[in-house]
């Protein structure tokens, strides 16, 4: 036979089990209404399959499990669904949960159901699926879905199956009575579970205060060919705790933070085995359970077979409650049960006991006294903790120390609080500390997440900046190289240029100069004539016109030649500049002359004015030519010599022009400011002239820029890409990325996040492409 070991601590509270074992298991009356919470187990709540008004049959599936760890819910009797809403549920929080309310029709008509004739013949997974479909979850108290545990043999080696029949909590006798009256169901259930888990050894752990149950089980085991040992353990609370029972039966401790399956052990409650038996052999889903109704406030304490969803009130009535004596209604045992403040709360799969206690039975706790560290709690703790230290840490909010003292290994069995002479509600302190720590952890996680995100963003910005910088450097290096190359090449092309282009230009220049000189002379003469108020003004005018036309021709020629020299180098550019300046000067002079003439009220002023206008135009043209040449120069500087990119040149052109425009604007503004600030009239007039000049230049520059811009658009259009469309696309791509990023931030589930990440990457790639294309034209 198996040896019995021991675990540290434990207490011996008054058992109070005799009261409810005198009568056999009774049948609770069928209530009018059944309230079935969607969550009667650990894990995700079930999802209702029926809607209000539906008729259901006994055993009909009314809610299906969502997720792996969840359990289905079946109708405990036939009737009509009258409501699906939130109702108070049996939970320590006292909160309500979603429930399906069924109005019983009293017929208790079963849905068609039948057991599996030979469960060994079908696939294991199929059998487990059948158990899952029967909505079975652990009936000892925690309510862990049973099918999940039955899968354990797939990834764990299960050596030992332990059937928990200890029932260590005082008052509760539901398992005891079940074992006494239906041992064959238990053994039958064990056979099914053993078939699924294939353990080499099966131990039934039972406390020595259940003599009848032990006898009944022993008799039943005789007819079973499995390797089952009934291990009688001494009565001590909490020997029915999973970890404590494992230690008792095997002397192995379940490592902290692991589950028993990790050491090859699976535990099942006796009630669960019976439910498995019924599901497999009879095809009955879990719709009822045995509940101990006891306590001094009921006259006839006993065990009842109760349909799930039955309100506590009808159980208490069935056991003859003395309402005036009731002071505390406890669901579960007195050590770990939860109080309920409402007798309409329904029985669920984990409801093993209902204690209607009187004031004398469970008196309100006296005020807590100071902890004198007497250590009685330490001697009682089944987890080898130091409850007195944990109490001080929890009270002082020293949660780090509490964790260091393994607060989270506390099973909240209440043994420490039971023995405490100072009546300190120790378990509450531990629950408080645990929840505080959990909250802290959650916040820490949130903070970590935020920090990670921030760091990622920071890294991205840095990376982008670095990339930009690298690009800029590369560009600068290229430019420097190009300049050097050009410098090196400067001598050669210059010579060539002098040979080829320069002569023409020179000649042209000379011609222009000659023309200019002539024009000057003519103008002078005209001026003189005008000054002298002499005749022959017409002739002079003729001469002037001639000179002008010549000068025009010369200038034009020069202009035509200018693109060539611009390729040649700076010298020509300078000349152009000079020419422009000269033209301007001339214009000024002509303007002066015009003024003079106007002052003197001469004839031919109109003509003179026209002349001045033409000159003005010319000066403008010269300036324009110069400006056109200048960007071309810059473009050449930056652009790699023979790169036939369609829009590259105009692009750079545009940039330079843009820059110029902005420079002009600044200058203009400055000059205007100076003008306003100027005090003397002379100064002002001079400044005014400057301003006008600048204004003009600004306008010119703007015009040039616009022109180039247009050219660029045209070029882009030629290339078959609508620049505008492209820009819009790029913006849209960017927006898509931002949206994706935001979604990513919000997304929590991993798979969801993965998907969004993938989408984001695709969007980024698209955006990059668009930007690249755009940058070619921009």
């Amino acid at each position: 036979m198996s040896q019995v070991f021991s675990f540290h601590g434990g207490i011996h509270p008054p058992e109070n089990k005799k009261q409810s074992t005198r009568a056999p298991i009774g049948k609770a009356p069928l209530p009018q209404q059944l309230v079935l919470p969607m969550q009667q187990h650990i894990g995700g709540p079930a999802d209702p399959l029926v809607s209000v008004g539906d008729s259901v049959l006994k055993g009909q599936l009314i809610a299906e499990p969502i997720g792996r760890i969840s359990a289905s819910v079946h109708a405990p009797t036939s009737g009509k669904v009258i409501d699906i809403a939130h109702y108070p549920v049996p939970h320590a929080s006292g909160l309500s949960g979603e429930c399906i309310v069924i109005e019983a029709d009293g017929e208790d008509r079963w849905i068609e159901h039948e057991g599996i004739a030979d469960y060994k013949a079908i696939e294991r997974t199929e059998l487990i699926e059948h158990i899952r479909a029967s909505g079975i979850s652990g009936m000892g108290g925690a309510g862990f879905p049973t099918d999940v545990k039955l899968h354990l043999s797939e990834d764990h080696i299960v050596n030992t199956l332990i059937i928990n029949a200890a029932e260590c909590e005082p008052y509760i006798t539901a398992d005891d009575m079940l074992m006494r009256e239906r041992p064959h169901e238990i053994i039958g259930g064990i056979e099914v579970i053993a078939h699924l888990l294939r353990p080499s050894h099966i131990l039934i752990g039972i406390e020595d205060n259940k003599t009848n149950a032990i006898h009944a089980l022993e008799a039943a085991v005789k007819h079973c060919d499995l390797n089952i040992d009934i291990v009688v353990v001494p009565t001590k609370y909490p020997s029915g705790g999973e970890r404590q029972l494992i230690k008792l039966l095997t002397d192995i401790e379940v490592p902290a933070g692991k589950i028993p399956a990790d050491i090859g052990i699976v535990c099942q409650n006796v009630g669960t085995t019976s439910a498995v038996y019924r599901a497999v052999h009879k095809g009955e889903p879990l719709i009822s359970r045995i509940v101990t109704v006891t306590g001094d406030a009921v006259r006839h304490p006993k065990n009842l077979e109760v349909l799930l969803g039955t309100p506590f009130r009808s159980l208490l009535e069935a056991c003859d409650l003395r309402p005036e004596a009731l002071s505390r209604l406890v669901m579960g045992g007195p050590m770990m049960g939860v109080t309920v403040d409402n007798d309409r709360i329904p029985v669920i799969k984990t409801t093993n006991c209902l204690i209607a206690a009187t004031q004398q039975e469970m008196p309100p706790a006296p005020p807590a006294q100071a902890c004198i560290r007497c250590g009685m709690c330490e001697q009682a703790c089944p987890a080898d903790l130091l409850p007195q230290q944990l109490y001080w840490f929890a009270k002082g909010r020293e949660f780090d120390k509490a964790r260091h003292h393994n607060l989270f290994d506390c099973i909240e069995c209440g043994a420490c609080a039971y023995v405490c002479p100072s009546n300190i509600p120790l378990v509450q302190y531990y629950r408080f500390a645990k929840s505080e720590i959990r909250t802290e952890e959650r916040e820490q996680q949130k903070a970590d997440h935020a920090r990670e995100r921030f760091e990622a963003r920071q890294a991205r910005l840095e990376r982008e900046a670095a990339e930009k910088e690298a690009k800029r450097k590369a560009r600068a290096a290229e430019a420097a190289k190009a300049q050097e190359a050009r410098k090196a090449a400067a001598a050669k092309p210059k010579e060539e240029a002098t040979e080829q282009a320069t002569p023409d230009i020179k000649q042209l220049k000379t011609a222009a100069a000659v023309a200019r000189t002539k024009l000057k002379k003519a103008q002078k003469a005209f001026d003189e004539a005008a000054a002298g108020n002499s005749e022959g003004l017409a002739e002079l005018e003729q001469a002037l016109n001639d000179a002008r036309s010549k000068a025009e021709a010369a200038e034009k020629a020069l202009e035509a030649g200018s693109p060539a020299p611009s390729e040649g180098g700076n010298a020509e550019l300078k000349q152009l500049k000079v020419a422009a300046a000269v033209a301007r000067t001339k214009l000024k002079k002509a303007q002066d002359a015009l003024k003079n003439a106007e002052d003197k009220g001469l004839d031919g002023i109109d003509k003179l004015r026209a002349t001045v206008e033409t000159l003005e135009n010319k000066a403008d043209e010269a300036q324009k030519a110069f400006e056109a040449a200048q960007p071309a120069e810059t473009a050449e500087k930056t652009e790699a010599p023979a790169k036939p990119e369609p829009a590259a040149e105009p692009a750079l052109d545009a940039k330079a022009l843009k820059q110029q425009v902005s420079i002009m604007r600044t200058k203009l503004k400055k000059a205007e400011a100076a003008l306003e600030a100027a005090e003397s009239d002379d100064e002002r007039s001079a400044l005014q002239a400057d301003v006008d000049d600048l204004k003009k230049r600004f306008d010119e520059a703007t015009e040039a820029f616009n022109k180039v811009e247009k050219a660029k658009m045209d070029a882009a259009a030629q290339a078959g890409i609508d620049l505008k469309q492209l820009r819009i696309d790029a913006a849209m791509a960017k927006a898509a990325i931002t949206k994706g990023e935001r979604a990513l931030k919000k997304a929590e589930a991993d798979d969801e996040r993965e998907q969004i990440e993938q989408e984001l990457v695709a969007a980024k790639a698209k955006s990059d492409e668009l930007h690249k294309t755009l940058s070619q034209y921009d």
Partner: protein
Amino acid sequence: MALIHLSSPHVSKANSTANVMRLVLLATLPGILAMTVFFGWGTLIQIVLASVLALLFEAAVLKLRKRPVGFFLSDGSALVTAVLVAVAIPPFSAWWVTATGIFFAIVIAKQLYGGLGNNPFNPAMVAYALLLVSFPVEMTRWTAPITQNGEGWHVAGFLDTLQVIFGSVEQQWYDSFTGATPLDVLKHRAGLTTEELWRQSDVLVNGVAAWYAISAAWFMGGIFLLSRKIFTWHAPLSMLIALFLMASMFYGFDPDNYVSPIVHLGVGATMLGAFFIVTDPVSSATSNRGKIIYGALIGVMIYIIRTWGNYPDAVAFSVLLMNLCAPFIDQYTQPRTYGHKKANRGTKGKSQ
């Protein structure tokens, strides 16, 4: 239906701190009885005086601290402290010695630290140490046991005792009823070997039996408390064993100059300390292992101070020193929790 909503557990053992204190007081009865038999009325008078003063001081401080007086007075901890101070000081101590001691124990060592459960030092021992250092003459004028006074129950009369405590008497009176304790004699041996002392000294020849008897009485009380699970065996046993081992080692090595382990266990405050002082849960180490270390270190310290220190007895100083160490011991003696490979050590670090 209005029902209370409460957190589990819903039942608790019928026990209370007051009950624990009552049991401790009950356990002191054999010792008090023995002391009264051998030293006369002094002990009883001191106990009454100390108890009244302790309750008064405690009530006054609770009032000042605005705490419910009745609730805290009823826990009985002040009475335990009072009794322990009263049996620790010489039975003929003047009232003001007792008053000073109780004031210091209750007001300074206990209430100023936050009251019951919050005092880092054992209040009775703080008081004793303070008195010993402040009033060495009064504190070493111990009553001679009746076994030294010839046949019959020859002790100072009740009224005489009252007078010596609350008034004053001739020096001669003291001489007739007081004497050195065995530990004093063994300490100030004037060059004699242990064996010679045992032959010469009246206290050792006639008086030591009384001390043994008193120790036996304290031991009985201790065993009673142990049986009632008021404390565990760890601290007292380890203290006694450590003291015994130290004494045996040196006595076996040099019996002429060192005192036998039996004497160390039987005289002075060894038994009182082991079962009523060292077991004070508030100021001692917490875990079982910690208590063993704590007790053993006290045993070692007692031997060291008795043998090489300036004071004949050393329980108070040893206990106070170890009270200081208790939090540190606690940090390194956490038990191994269920499911953990090994126990956690130190203040923090990775919990497994």
